[in-house]
């Protein structure tokens, strides 16, 4: 298993209610897993726990069987806002993780060059983030996430701020990236179609606060995928089902 939540309970100290209780779930190595749920239900909090920004009150989180407290650089986190540093060029932004890992200069330059090529950004190394479009910035942010060197990528609604067409383009791009690298991706979204199109497995946060399990849905589609796959009757059915589920939760 890439990631396992074992009996994890968590409550923000400032909140009076628990966010999750005795939560159990796991993610297989190399898979593409989406976590979907209404906003405010605690999706980002899951990532905060995995990143070690919050500590669970009880239970344990392990990556490849090792508790995260014993690990370093096990997850690459890509936040919802790209959070590129405006005073750094694209290149300097991308190199940030390696810079913090005290990588030597030559290694940094080589890795940076390679990743820029891989994500299709050659030629904009020296530009500042303010000169880039939203889609480009997300690519840069993704490249920075890749250079953490982690096998597991945590993407928190990375495309939610993009316009419709850029979003579609980025989804296809991400899928392509994933197929090439064989990393494990955890992808938070509140967009049902996005989750269906991208993931191998979708986890639905089935009951708002406190939740103790994620409802697992395996998507019956092979890779590589095409947008037209979303038109298949069983996928349309699945989509309706998911929307109903999320809607009910939102009302409650």
């Amino acid at each position, binding site marked *: 298993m890439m990631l396992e939540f074992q009996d994890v309970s968590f409550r923000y100290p400032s909140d009076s209610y628990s966010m999750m209780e005795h939560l159990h779930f796991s993610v297989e190595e190399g898979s593409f897993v989406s976590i979907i749920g209404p906003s405010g239900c605690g999706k980002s909090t899951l990532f905060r726990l995995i*990143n070690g*920004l919050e500590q669970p009150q009880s239970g344990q989180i392990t990556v490849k069987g090792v508790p995260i407290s014993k690990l370093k650089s096990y997850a690459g986190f890509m936040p919802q806002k790209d959070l590129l540093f405006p005073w750094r060029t694209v290149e300097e932004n991308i190199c940030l993780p390696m810079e913090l890992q005290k990588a030597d200069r030559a290694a940094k330059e080589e890795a940076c060059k390679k990743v820029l090529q891989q994500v299709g950004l050659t030629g904009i190394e020296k530009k500042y983030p303010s000169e880039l479009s939203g889609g480009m910035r997300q690519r840069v942010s993704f490249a920075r996430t890749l250079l953490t060197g982690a096998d597991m990528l945590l993407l928190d609604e990375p495309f939610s701020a993009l316009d419709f067409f850029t979003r579609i383009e980025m989804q296809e791009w991400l899928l392509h990236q994933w197929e090439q690298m064989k990393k494990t991706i955890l992808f938070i979204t509140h967009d049902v179609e996005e989750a269906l199109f991208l993931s191998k497995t979708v986890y639905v946060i089935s009951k708002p606060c406190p939740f103790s399990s994620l409802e697992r849905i395996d998507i019956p589609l092979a890779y590589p995928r095409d947008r037209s796959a979303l038109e298949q009757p069983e996928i349309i059915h699945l989509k309706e089902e998911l929307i109903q589920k999320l809607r009910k939760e939102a009302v409650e």
Partner: protein
Amino acid sequence: MKRHLPSLCVTVGILLVWQLIALLIDAAYILPSPLQILVRLWELKEPLFCVHLPATMGVTILGLFISVVLGLLLAIAMDRSEALERALYPVIVASQTIPTTAIAPLFILWFGYSIWGKVLVTILMTFFPIAITVFDGFRSTKREMEELLLTLGASKSDIFLKLKIPTALPNFFSAIKMAVPLSVIGAAIAEWLGAQQGLGYFSKRMMTQLDGAGVFAPIVLLSVAAMAVVAIISFAEKKIITWRKEL
């Protein structure tokens, strides 16, 4: 150039009106005209440029330098320690309402005519605004960016060097640009109160001689010097802050 045209017109307009009124009053010891001041500036160029301007700029720059160093240290200390921030920040903000000019004579009393009394006045005028502005810059650091760095394994000093300093850099420049005129004023006031040289002292001496244009000439020089320093700092700022500020 086009951008500065309106303000240039206003300046010229004011000078013209001033010249006109001065001509009407026709008493240079009450209101010297701009032209008379310029002429006097020229006549007094020797003592002004060779003795008094260097003296004042010495006080200004020394005071400013000490203020920047101390202000930065205080800002960093308050950023490091929340206890220190809670203890000092409100006091510093409140201290801004104390009229420095009113307590300046005290320093002259303590330190006599030595340079340190004057330097202390300029420090007092600039130290706190610098500390507050830079500290506010540190505090405007985005928490999400800090957390991102934490997930990348950053240490406290990484966060300080790679996030807080660049975030606060624009504030740092604003602080200095604001402090330059303040420290010039501080130096001039201190010289006015008690000194044997400096533009403030010179202006006061001219006052006792009822030389209106002579009172104004060093003040004009003082303003121009302050503007020049601010211009130099703005230039450095443009060279260093090459990125566009984002919200």
